[in-house]
């Protein structure tokens, strides 16, 4: 009998991998992710639900949930903040 293996998951995504997923989230809305980490999220149109989508995509990749409270979300202003927060959340779970 053939068994279907679950998709392989990695335990933690690095900044570049998270950045790739962020590019995909923005691309799905026809938006671009500027290079560097200092771009302002409001200027590139990355909203709080986009952060949710990105977090859920990261969860899919690492195979576990990254549940978190909203206050942390209120402090993210730049692309670098997004990458920092997702790195922090992965470390915490």
């Amino acid at each position, binding site marked *: 009998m053939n068994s279907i293996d679950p998709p392989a998951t990695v335990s933690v995504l690095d900044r570049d991998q998270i950045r790739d997923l962020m590019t995909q989230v923005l691309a799905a809305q026809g938006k671009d992710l500027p290079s560097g980490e200092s771009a302002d999220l409001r200027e590139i149109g990355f909203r709080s639900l986009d952060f949710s989508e990105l*977090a859920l995509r990261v969860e899919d990749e690492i195979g576990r949930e990254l549940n978190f409270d909203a206050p942390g979300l209120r402090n993210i202003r730049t692309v670098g903040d997004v990458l920092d927060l997702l790195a922090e959340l992965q470390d915490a779970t």
Partner: protein
Amino acid sequence: MSDSPVPAASVVLVSGGSRGLGLSIVEDLVAAGLKVAAFARTVTPELAKLADTEPDTVLAGSVDVTDLAAVTAFVRRTESTLGPIDGLVNNAAIGQDSLHVHTAPDALARLIETNLTAPLLLTRLVLRRLLATSRRGRIVNVTSICAQRGFPGLAAYSATKGGMEAATRSLARELRDRALINCVAPGFFASEMSAVLGSTQLDQIVRRTSTGRLTEPVDVLPVVRMLLTADTNIHGQVLTVDGGSNT
């Protein structure tokens, strides 16, 4: 059916009476001459001081509202210390500040257990003792504006408060004139629970409020006291104290 009004409560049990609105309710009821038993997981120095200063009037206990055995023991202790309970304020609750999709299942279950299951069980316990001894009483459930209006980050919390309001209406039908049961639904006020709100959110709430200011516990106290003590014939209702943010 009796044609006399349900008498004012004289011995009131307040859940979550250690700080915030609950502590203010305890202080207010004591000042109004009622006997009060209050519990929370941690008895704060303020509550302990009140109980020490007025041992014949105030009883304080360290009890988790989700621990039915401990709650039952505290109810019995209250009855033997202060007398039969004829008033209940379901005030203990925990808050939430997380989008539904990012709320862990165990956090969601804890919210429902603390804010909905536990007060329903406490209400059941107090009512059973009231009915078994031919007494009449009053119950006030502290709900929230969140039961009527949507706020992001509060889905499960709002569901518990809406659940208490729905239960209140059905219980009013069940209890008829044996006990009056109502809800007080405050708007946001400053406390440990609401400390997570950012200044942008608070500004937005104030802007949407007709009176132009946030609710304060002191605004809520006369309403709770009235429901516990005044002859009003108010039954199965939700009294909203929020400065008109939902108008």
